[in-house]
């Protein structure tokens, strides 16, 4: 596989996963807030800030009043905002186009269809009445695309590269969602103490990651801070946990990496190291310094992405450089 095309496939996976998470966060946060148990959680400004924090990684000053329609437009359909869902699909499509000869016809057509559908979605509908419809289209479309990835591609290095992109982005997005909701929960707690329905923010967090039902089945208890974080970070059976994302990354990098010995500081080495560190991690080690933990996690995942680029996607090398490597 060409190095340039591998990069395209990696980013196609990342953009698809990113769009899915942003759309789900938007939907779950917005609609669950409508009948939230406390006034702050119901407040439009609070919800819109949370949405901007997660999707754009932007902390909005408290003296700035956000316009709901503007936020929905920017996160959903504004081509000029780099974090928008529509941009995610445009980028995924461009990347798929560059690798069209390598991916299945069915996969390309699924990406192509959704890009057209999202790009043509009426702004008026999204910002005034059909946020649910829009985000559902995105969720169904990403689900369709992933099913095509799973079932219409050879499970070879092309597949492994896309899955690496999906899983690295999943780890990053889940970490950002945790950051955002933990921050919301702390703000609510500061104002209301433990008097209000303490489960609300944790239920929302789980739903934002599509993990609520799984968590209830696993713990058979109401979600609270510790068990929610433990489930989302350390439960290897939960397909959306950080630990699972790392395990998947490790599996796919092993498919790609032909070397049994992983050179220190290579992407394969860093993924393996991180996976091992997570194997015996306890939530108690994380919970006290959660903010630091997620910041470090995001840094490490970003660094792995850079290393992947150096190890596999670099197109600047020539015969000599490769021979030396």
């Amino acid at each position, binding site marked *: 596989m060409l190095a340039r095309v591998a990069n395209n496939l990696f980013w196609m996976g990342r953009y698809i996963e990113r769009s899915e998470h942003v759309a789900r966060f938007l939907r779950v946060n917005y609609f669950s807030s409508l009948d939230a148990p406390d006034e702050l959680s119901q407040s439009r400004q609070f919800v819109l800030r949370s949405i901007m924090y997660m999707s754009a990684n932007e902390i909005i000053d408290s003296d700035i009043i956000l316009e709901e329609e503007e936020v929905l437009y920017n996160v959903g359909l504004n081509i000029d905002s780099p974090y928008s869902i529509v941009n995610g699909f445009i980028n995924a499509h461009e990347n798929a186009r560059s690798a069209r000869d390598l991916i299945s016809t069915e996969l390309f057509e699924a990406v192509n269809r959704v890009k057209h559908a999202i790009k043509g979605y009426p702004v008026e509908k999204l910002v005034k009445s059909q946020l649910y419809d829009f985000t559902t289209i995105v969720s169904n479309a990403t689900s369709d695309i992933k099913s095509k990835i799973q079932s219409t591609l050879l499970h070879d290095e092309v597949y492994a*590269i896309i899955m690496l992109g999906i899983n690295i982005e999943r780890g990053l997005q889940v970490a950002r969602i945790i950051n955002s909701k933990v921050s919301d929960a702390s703000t609510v707690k500061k104002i209301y103490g433990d008097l209000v329905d303490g489960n609300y923010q944790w239920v929302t967090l789980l739903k934002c990651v599509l993990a609520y039902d799984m968590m209830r089945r696993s713990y058979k208890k109401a979600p609270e801070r510790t068990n929610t974080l433990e489930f989302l970070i350390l439960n290897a059976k939960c397909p959306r946990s950080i630990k699972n994302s790392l395990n998947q990354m490790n599996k796919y990098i092993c498919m790609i990496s032909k070397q049994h010995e992983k050179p220190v500081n290579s992407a394969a080495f860093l993924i393996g190291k991180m996976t091992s560190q997570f194997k015996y991690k306890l939530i108690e080690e994380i919970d006290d310094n959660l903010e630091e933990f997620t910041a470090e996690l995001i840094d490490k995942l970003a660094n792995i992405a850079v290393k992947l680029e150096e190890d596999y996607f670099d197109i600047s090398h020539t*015969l000599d450089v490769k021979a030396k490597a």
Partner: protein
Amino acid sequence: MKDPLNLPLFSSYEFDSRFYDELFAKRDDIRGIYKTLFELFGTYSVSEFNRLNIQAKDSFFNSGITFQVYGENEVNEKIFPFDLFPRIIDHEEWETIETGVLQRSKALNLFLWDVYHDQKIIKQGIVPKSLIDSSVNFLPEMINFDPPEGVYNHISGTDLIKHSDGQYYVLEDNIRCPSGVSYVIGNRGAVKHALFGVFNQYKTHTVVNYGSKLLETMQSVKPTGVDNPVCVILTPGVYNSAYYEHCFLAKQMGILLVEGRDLFVENDFVYMKTIYGIEKVDVIYRRVDDLYIDPLVFKADSLLGVPGLFSVYLKGNVALVNAPGTGVADDKAIYTYMPEIIKYYLDEDPILNNVHTYHCSRKNELNYVLENIDKLVVKPVDESGGYGISIGNKLTKDEIEKVKENIKKDPRKYIAQPIMSLSTHPTYIDDNESFESRHVDLRTFTLLGKDINFVLKGGLTRVALKKGNLVVNSSQGGGSKDTWVLKK
């Protein structure tokens, strides 16, 4: 059968006896091979047909069989207009076409060899030396070079029309990077889905074997000493208007689609950059024009090519498909000499007719052209895509003067031909919700390799969508039709 022209879908069909109508032999007489197809179309109501038409267009759009149009602020994707009423060619007629285009491709290949070696045809005074020397597509760098297996034009696209006399004439031979075969296969898919009932009633040759034959052709011209050649397609990139076709062909052949930046030259070989390091490349079907393939030899500012590629080619370590410099033979001035070229190299009479052509570099013919522009089509010899063509009877007096001035400035650049009566074919016109007659041509695709002579049994029927227009090129707003070649 009802009066065909009273059927709703054909109510505004104007049968014009000046042209060969592919469907109607006479005003109320449907040609035999079209009867079954016509009966099916006769059963459709306008709304039913509209639905099929929209479905077919949507399927092209959703499948990404599109080309890109650049507006001021954004890129728009458009589908190459497609008409659901297929063109049918019976086996006898096809046999003439097939042997005819193959004959031309072989003759052109021998001509290219000669032009870049002994130039016997020039020395014997059959083709003037000045035509070769003055051709912008002649590459002196190719002189005395022997391409693998002696093949230059591995892929040829021959454009044919059917004149009012019912005979096929060749309009031009395209042997640089002829486009359109992906639409042949795409159109077939769309028609099969939409008209599956009727399709079963026609024994039609398949067109899906093109990819396998193309790969076989590429592999057959591998460099000496290579057992299992690594073949790739070189594309200018995603913004090229034919990018869809490049992807399509790579996918059909299961080979990689590369850009110039994916390749590099070292130690006299071409390599590509993969995730596991470098891999040698042996055969390149390049869809990048000659002058852009190697900035060290041709256009120094080209970012589309690969520095050093041409020297590797000359050393025989990589095969290029089509060979650089083939353009000298599809120059429209050389076309004038095709009957002589065929006779000289193959000792055969041409199977397909040439359109009588006046070459403006010949004084007598120049005078005739200047005096009769209103009756002629004037074409630049080195353009493609329908650019620069002037159709005499559509020009105003001022425009005629302008064309004359251009010809006088550079007579070598122009040829002229009588205005041919391209045959017409029923074509669905969305705005009027009915079929109308429109002019069509046919592009065939021929492959030449080591022991391979293949003509795709089908082709791209191009339609001039504007009423009365004779220019069918997609770049001039033309559309296309599926083309069925019937089995014996």
